[in-house]
């Protein structure tokens, strides 16, 4: 989860988020080099005594500073586009979950199992002993290392379902189904918050994702159905 002094992404727990972080590092390093080149050229010009005649006209330099940004853009574009299409890839998943946004809570339906649906309200601040404004009364549980397909929609206004550590976010729009594909690499608890303004309690409808090995996921399903 995020901490108060954090500037970077959260640690990645899905292959997609891993690739997002790699792309971010790649683009940031290219940008740093561009800043270095531009900063150095700027400082050289500022400190110049204007006694170099070639500074008023230099065809080779003009060709270079037209050609070079194009090269940098291509270097950035190729991995970016690759990741863009990779994030849209979906394979047939053994588990499908329907997520509906309400004012101001989320409800989940596991249609692959009989009678498994529940609502997830934020735990009251006074009663929770865990993370403030992030805990919910029911956790959304998924198995690790299994492709999950999540259908996100809404019953009233726009909401947005997101788990930053998984690198997923989708608007839940009334009358529309958006699809998210998640593969959790490790077990753990992951938090997210509604990311589209939806009213008074927009800040108080968090998401808690509990990823477990498949054996424990089956136990959870049994417990939830029985209860």
């Amino acid at each position, binding site marked *: 989860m995020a901490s108060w002094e954090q500037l970077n992404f959260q640690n990645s727990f899905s292959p997609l988020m891993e690739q997002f972080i790699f792309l971010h590092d790649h683009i940031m390093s290219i940008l740093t080099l561009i800043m270095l080149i531009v900063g150095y050229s700027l400082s050289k010009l500022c400190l110049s005594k204007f006694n170099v005649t070639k500074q008023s006209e230099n065809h080779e330099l003009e060709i270079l500073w037209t050609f070079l940004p194009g090269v940098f853009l291509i270097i950035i574009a190729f991995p970016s586009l690759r990741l863009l299409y990779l994030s849209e890839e979906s394979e047939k998943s053994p588990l499908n979950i329907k997520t509906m946004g309400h004012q101001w809570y989320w409800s989940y339906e596991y249609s692959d199992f009989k009678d498994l649906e529940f609502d997830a309200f934020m735990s009251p601040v006074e009663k929770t002993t865990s993370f403030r404004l992030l805990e919910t009364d029911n956790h959304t549980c998924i198995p690790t290392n299994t*492709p999950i397909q999540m259908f996100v929609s809404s019953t009233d206004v726009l909401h947005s379902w997101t788990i930053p550590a998984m690198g997923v976010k989708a608007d839940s729009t009334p009358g529309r189904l958006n699809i998210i594909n998640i593969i959790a690499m490790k077990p753990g608890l992951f938090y997210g918050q509604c990311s589209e303004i939806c009213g008074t309690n927009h800040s108080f409808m968090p998401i808690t994702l509990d990823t477990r090995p498949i054996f424990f996921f089956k136990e959870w399903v049994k417990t939830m159905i029985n209860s």
Partner: protein
Amino acid sequence: MAASPNLDVEQALLDFEEAQEKKKSSLKLFGKSISDIPCFREAFLYGIVGGLGVGIASFLFTSRVGRSLDFTVYSYAAITAGTWCYCRYEKAHRHLELLRFKHEMKTRALTEGVTDTDRLRSVQTDSTSEEGSVIILPAPRTTS
């Protein structure tokens, strides 16, 4: 006499702790340890050494400080960018090959001994789960 297997585990734990200590003491950029960024160290080391080399060589040949400094900075940027892009491309290529290899290994382990491979290829197989795969198989044939 065979070596005790516990020694390897202890060595692995020591190596892990050493790696964690190194990570703690490594330089951090905006809260992120640079040792976590693949190819960073290699690219910037090559860039610094290459840039300095080109700068010193140009100074030795031209004895012009300003021009040599220009060569140093621009060659540093070019060498760093080139090494970075090449290293990242190779890493992504290797990562993809490793994923394909792992997937193939798991599929072969699961389908070992299976003779009806054509039928099995038409069946959706999920071999990414570590705790036993989630395989969707067709209903068994009943022989009358």
